[in-house]
């Protein structure tokens, strides 16, 4: 691939779709006359008509509809939607309902982050970014860390699913949230069952931290990859914090820090439109949210740019610590190694993700031990329709907002959903461009380099809506070379067409 591309000496490189990020996404890299990177964009295919689909439905159906937007983040959609609907009906969930919702969300974090670390990022960090593509997958990861580890991964994912199923009705598409709380709580037997599983998950969190330590941190090359300049951007960060400014997933205020780590603003989710605006580019269906009061100044980082980033590293950057002991220890260690806060190294996202695995497990164990967790007081019955509601949670891949408007009968008239990957859109473009600039010189592009560009993208664990399956062959990486008239003159693929 590299030779062919280099010989053609042409100016546009298209990577589509991205391997291991099998969405309707593609990366376009535009080269200048000298064969160096001029611009790099990532794009997604838009799924149309969601708002229209929702209009005219009873708003309380939204927590069951919105998990269908995405097969990757059904649980956070269920939670953000549940909170928005609470507000539409002017009712707050009971304390027990809030705890159970949070526990279900934490279980989803475990499930999601485990997949990312072991199956998606793991191949780069455990097997190596330059390894044979045939080995650079979850099998290769487990070959390195041992068969027992593979079994632990399966078990931990199964328990994470089971906890979501017990609390939220179904593991993949939760159904339990209702205005004012949840349809049913948990029994004493279910509590015992979750307690046992949470013990396992805490051990698994420790095991994952140790694995990260042994395989990644003890390998100088990987540490250099994380701390190197390839994917570093000095942006603002956004995440949710509790009253002590610890990382919070389900409830809290949104805190934004500037590239120096100073608090820029702290606000309630309901006020998101006062602080976030969206920039539109003609080449992308997805908009680019930015800090409204900073303004949009293009795809640049720095203290004067309104670009902010979300997701695990951003959450840790905006917080003062983790609310649970083992996760907090790991948090302190990460910033010691990275030289303080905020950490701007995009690949440290993977480290932050491992710390959040630990936190999620500890938090489940903490919540299940609360005396009122089996209380039957799981719902405040709403008595009126307020008409408008905003709900926000931290999804594994960043801050997620649901905003609904309903008429007097509670029928939805308008909906706005700002997803985590949307929040990271500008940041992802920054990372792809920077990686491409460092790794593509004088038309020299080879598979290893393309993988490094993709690593920048993958670090965000971006998520697009679910759609059908395609059958293109092996890894669906496609490079298209365009001439200066934008005609495709060469198509090079990893798969048969």
């Amino acid at each position, binding site marked *: 691939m590299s030779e062919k591309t280099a010989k053609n000496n042409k100016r546009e490189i298209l990577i589509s779709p991205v391997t291991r990020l099998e969405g309707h996404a593609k990366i376009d890299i535009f080269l200048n006359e000298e064969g160096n990177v001029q611009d790099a964009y990532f794009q997604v295919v838009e799924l149309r008509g*969601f708002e229209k689909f929702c209009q005219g439905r009873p708003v309380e159906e939204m927590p069951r509809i919105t998990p269908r937007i995405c097969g990757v983040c059904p649980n956070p959609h269920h939670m953000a939607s549940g909170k928005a609907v609470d507000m539409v009906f002017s009712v707050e969930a009971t304390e027990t309902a809030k705890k159970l919702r949070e526990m279900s969300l934490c279980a989803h974090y475990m499930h999601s982050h485990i997949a990312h670390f072991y199956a998606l990022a793991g191949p780069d960090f455990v097997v190596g970014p330059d390894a044979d593509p045939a080995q650079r997958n979850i*099998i290769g990861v487990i070959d390195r860390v041992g068969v027992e580890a593979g079994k632990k991964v399966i078990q931990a994912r199964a328990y994470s699913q089971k906890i979501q199923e017990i609390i939220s009705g179904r593991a993949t598409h939760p159904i339990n949230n209702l205005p004012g709380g949840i349809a049913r709580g948990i029994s004493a037997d279910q509590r015992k069952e979750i307690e046992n599983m949470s013990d396992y998950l805490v051990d698994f969190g420790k095991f994952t931290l140790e694995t990260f330590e042994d395989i990644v941190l003890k390998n100088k090359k990987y540490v250099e990859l994380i701390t190197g300049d390839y994917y570093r951007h000095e942006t603002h960060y956004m995440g949710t914090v509790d009253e002590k400014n610890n990382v919070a997933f389900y409830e809290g205020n949104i805190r934004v820090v500037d590239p120096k780590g100073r608090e820029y603003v702290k606000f309630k989710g309901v006020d998101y439109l006062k602080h976030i605006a969206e920039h539109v580019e003609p080449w992308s269906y997805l908009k680019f949210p930015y800090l409204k009061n900073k303004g949009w100044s293009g795809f640049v980082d720095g203290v004067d740019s309104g670009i902010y980033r979300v997701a695990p590293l951003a959450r840790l950057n905006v917080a003062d610590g983790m609310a649970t002991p083992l996760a907090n220890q790991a948090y302190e260690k990460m910033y010691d190694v990275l030289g303080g806060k905020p950490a701007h190294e995009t690949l440290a996202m993977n480290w932050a993700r491992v710390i959040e695995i630990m936190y999620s497990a500890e938090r489940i164990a903490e919540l299940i031990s609360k005396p009122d967790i089996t209380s039957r007081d799981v719902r405040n019955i709403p008595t009126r329709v307020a008409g408008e509601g905003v709900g926000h949670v931290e999804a594994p891949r960043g801050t997620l907002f649901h905003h609904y408007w309903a008429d007097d009968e509670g029928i939805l008239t308008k909906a706005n959903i700002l997803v985590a990957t949307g929040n990271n859109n500008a940041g992802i473009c920054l990372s792809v461009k920077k990686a491409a600039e460092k790794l593509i010189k004088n038309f020299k592009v080879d598979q290893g380099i393309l993988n490094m560009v993709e690593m920048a993208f993958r670090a965000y664990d971006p*998520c697009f809506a*679910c759609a059908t399956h*395609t059958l293109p062959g092996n890894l669906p990486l496609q490079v298209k070379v365009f001439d200066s008239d934008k005609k495709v003159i060469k198509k090079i693929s990893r798969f*048969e067409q």
Partner: protein
Amino acid sequence: MKTLVLGVGNPILGDDGVGIHVIRELRKKIKDVDFDEVSVSGLELVELFRGYDKVIIVDAIKTKQGIPGEIRELTLDNIPTLHGITPHDVDFKTAFEYGKRFIDKMPDEVRIIGIEVDKINEFDEKLSAKVSESIPKAAKLIKEDLLNGS
């Protein structure tokens, strides 16, 4: 023999939900077989196989020369690679290999029934006409398999 029939897809994303419609059709007619409707792929899909002797998947597919409504049978040997269009997962073959190595009991037989689809980029509970017509055909194919044990 313990059998699982999975309808895979997104029921609110137009034709993508065709597999789920097939399952709903079959559920009414057949007992003693587990049915499930899921919107997952890769690892999560394969993790559902645990404990079954046989798994049949019905899913939406889109191939280059495919005609909407066409039913194509795929096996683990002839499937090129089944990519979930979710950015957060691995391809089916890798996931299945992972399952075989680390899940205690995996099915000996996996059948994949793919239905060629058309409209998949717009939220809609309805299927396009040609795809809709394929539902009884796919259901019949699976029913015969389940009843005859073929």
